[in-house]
């Protein structure tokens, strides 16, 4: 702290000490923010460490075979991750396949084409959707999506595309398709909200330049604005992917919770997050518990790998000198 005696001397001295104090604040702020950022790293390391330690029994018992074993039999002490990994990847991929085109389309409309009044009302509603708890989406899925898939969408798909293996077999209403649909609904607001922000932050000149060389409104949007906002849009997709991979409640309510790999998308399945939530509280056997934790580690690795792949994709598709 500054010495009071010198402050009293002159007004000039006072301003100097204030400036000094401000300058002295920089290293403090630097240190504080670095510590805060460091805790993120620390948490990640601790998380992996804990998952690694706690899953020791299952790792020793099954080794890498855990990843491609199809068994999940707590009574016989046989555990394998493949049906869960499959269910997690398929539901997430299918969900994004539905929500990305819709979400990006909606974002383009809201950012570029909609009248401002519409845009603000719709954006508010979209952000409201993002705040709905997942159990509510789960209930919505049980009461509306499940009957819809069972009585209408499932039979329609079977009638038209039934020659493909993905739409054959009994239709229960609950299953991989229903889980993917509710995940699509849940990731939709994220994609819209973030993509819209990315599109809005594209400089005006970009549009004006395109219009000036004779592009139509749509051509300027599609050829000049969207490529400029590409990174933000990709970011929204990967955030949604992360959300879809880890979603537990809504998925477990409608996926049927059956650890089998069926060719049909209308058949029940299971995801990693769901099985952990379902079985953790009552897992009494040591190996069972350990296998569930190992599944957690597998989910963590899947998320890491997909995120790394996303980074690589971004690096690979960014031309040198292009806007970042």
């Amino acid at each position, binding site marked *: 702290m500054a010495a009071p005696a010198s402050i009293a001397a002159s007004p000039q001295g006072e301003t100097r000490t204030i400036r000094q104090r401000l300058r002295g604040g920089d290293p403090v702020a630097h240190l504080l923010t670095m510590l805060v950022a460091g805790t993120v790293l620390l948490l990640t390391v601790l998380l992996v460490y804990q998952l690694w330690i706690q899953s020791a029994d299952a790792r020793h018992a099954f080794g890498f075979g855990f990843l491609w074993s199809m068994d999940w039999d707590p009574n016989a002490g046989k555990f394998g991750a493949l049906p869960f990994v499959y269910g997690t990847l398929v539901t997430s991929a299918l969900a994004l396949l539905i929500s990305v085109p819709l979400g990006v389309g909606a974002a383009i409309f809201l950012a570029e084409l909609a009248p401002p009044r519409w845009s603000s009302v719709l954006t508010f509603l979209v952000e409201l959707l993002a705040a709905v708890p997942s159990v509510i989406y789960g209930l919505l899925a049980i009461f509306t999506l499940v009957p819809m898939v069972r009585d209408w969408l499932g039979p329609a798909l079977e009638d038209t595309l039934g020659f493909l293996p993905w739409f054959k077999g009994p239709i229960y209403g609950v299953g991989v398709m229903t889980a993917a649909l509710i995940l699509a609904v849940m990731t939709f607001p994220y994609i819209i909200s973030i993509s819209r922000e990315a599109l809005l932050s594209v400089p005006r000149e970009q549009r004006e330049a395109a219009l000036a060389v004779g592009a139509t409104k749509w051509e300027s949007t599609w050829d000049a604005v969207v490529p400029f906002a590409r990174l933000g849009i990709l970011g929204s997709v990967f955030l949604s992917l992360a959300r879809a991979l880890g979603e537990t409640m809504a998925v477990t309510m409608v996926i049927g919770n059956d650890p089998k790999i069926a060719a049909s998308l209308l058949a029940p399945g299971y995801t990693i997050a769901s099985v952990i939530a379902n079985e953790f509280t009552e*897992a009494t056997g040591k190996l069972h518990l350990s296998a569930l934790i190992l599944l957690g580690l597998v989910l963590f690795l899947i998320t890491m790998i997909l995120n790394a792949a996303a980074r690589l994709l971004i690096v690979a598709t960014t031309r040198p000198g292009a806007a970042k």
Partner: protein
Amino acid sequence: MHGYALGEARHSGERDCSANGGKINSRRRQDEETNLKRLGVWTVALATLAGAGAWAADLHAAGATFPAPIYQKWFQEYKRQHASVQVNYQSIGSGGGIRQLTAGTVDFGASDAPMTDSQMAEIKGFQVLHFPTVMGAVVPTYNIPGVSQELKFSGETLAGIYLGKITRWNDGSIAKENPGVKLPGAGIIVTHRSDGSGTTFVWSDYLSKVSPEWKSKVGANTSLNWPVGLGAKGNEGVAGLVKQTPNSIGYVELIYAVQNKMGYGLVKNAEGIFVKADLAGVTAAAAGAAKSMPADFRVSITDAPGKTSYPISTFTWLLIPDRISDAAKREDLKAFLKWMLSDGQGYCAGLSYAPLPHQVVAKEMKQIERIQ
């Protein structure tokens, strides 16, 4: 702490502008003192808030969710009548209860399934005593459009359905047990619990007793490798799925079915009589099993003898250490157990739990003396 430092900096900044250094110092000290006092008050307030849960509780327990409503009622009533004893019960699931008891973080546990020998062996320093507290039952529920009668099931038929061998509602074995009921030819959609559950344990324990094939292929546990069917979370999940899915079958706790006024089927007991589950039938099953009850109470009462016994019945247990070093806790717990086995049983019916038969109560009273 951060806010406190900021406040101090702002105060000292204001004071820097005034001339008299000595005054500043004394005022600063005063300021700091009031700040410290304020901080102290906050600390005490926060500690009181946090402590309301932790400090006042004399006994800590954790475990099964199925009996949680009656346990809460008991602990509350017991505290009202014996002001000194408060029990803090967390219904985190039987598995969690056993884990916490093993780790020594709770005074006692609760479970819907008796502990296995290997689980008992993991506990160091004391033996676990099993005290049956109340009983429950599991009932088959179904949704068949056009069928309003109560269906009858034998254990073999239920096992066949859940093994995926009986696939249609008009299958011969179902039709034979339900003469006069017009059953559709629709495929049976099997539903079961997806979350690990004592309900699943009882259901599969019963199927294991009546079907050798079920026993060898699937067995009994809280989570299973189901041959067929859709999984749903919780009683409400299974009930909802059955209600929503035509031609489906599932199983739920009797209490859940009663409280939600759901219809459910009759099950054939060991004497060959079809019984509709009710509290008396469950107590009868325990009484029927009492003759062959082992001394440690680790027993399944599914498929119990007795004409009125409902076959898919179960105890739920408190898991009490036989050695409690804290004398006050030990006496409190023993007094509570005695109250639970006598006056406490009176609260069962109001919450749709079946009370213990007197033969079992008498045996348990003796076991209380083993707690030292």
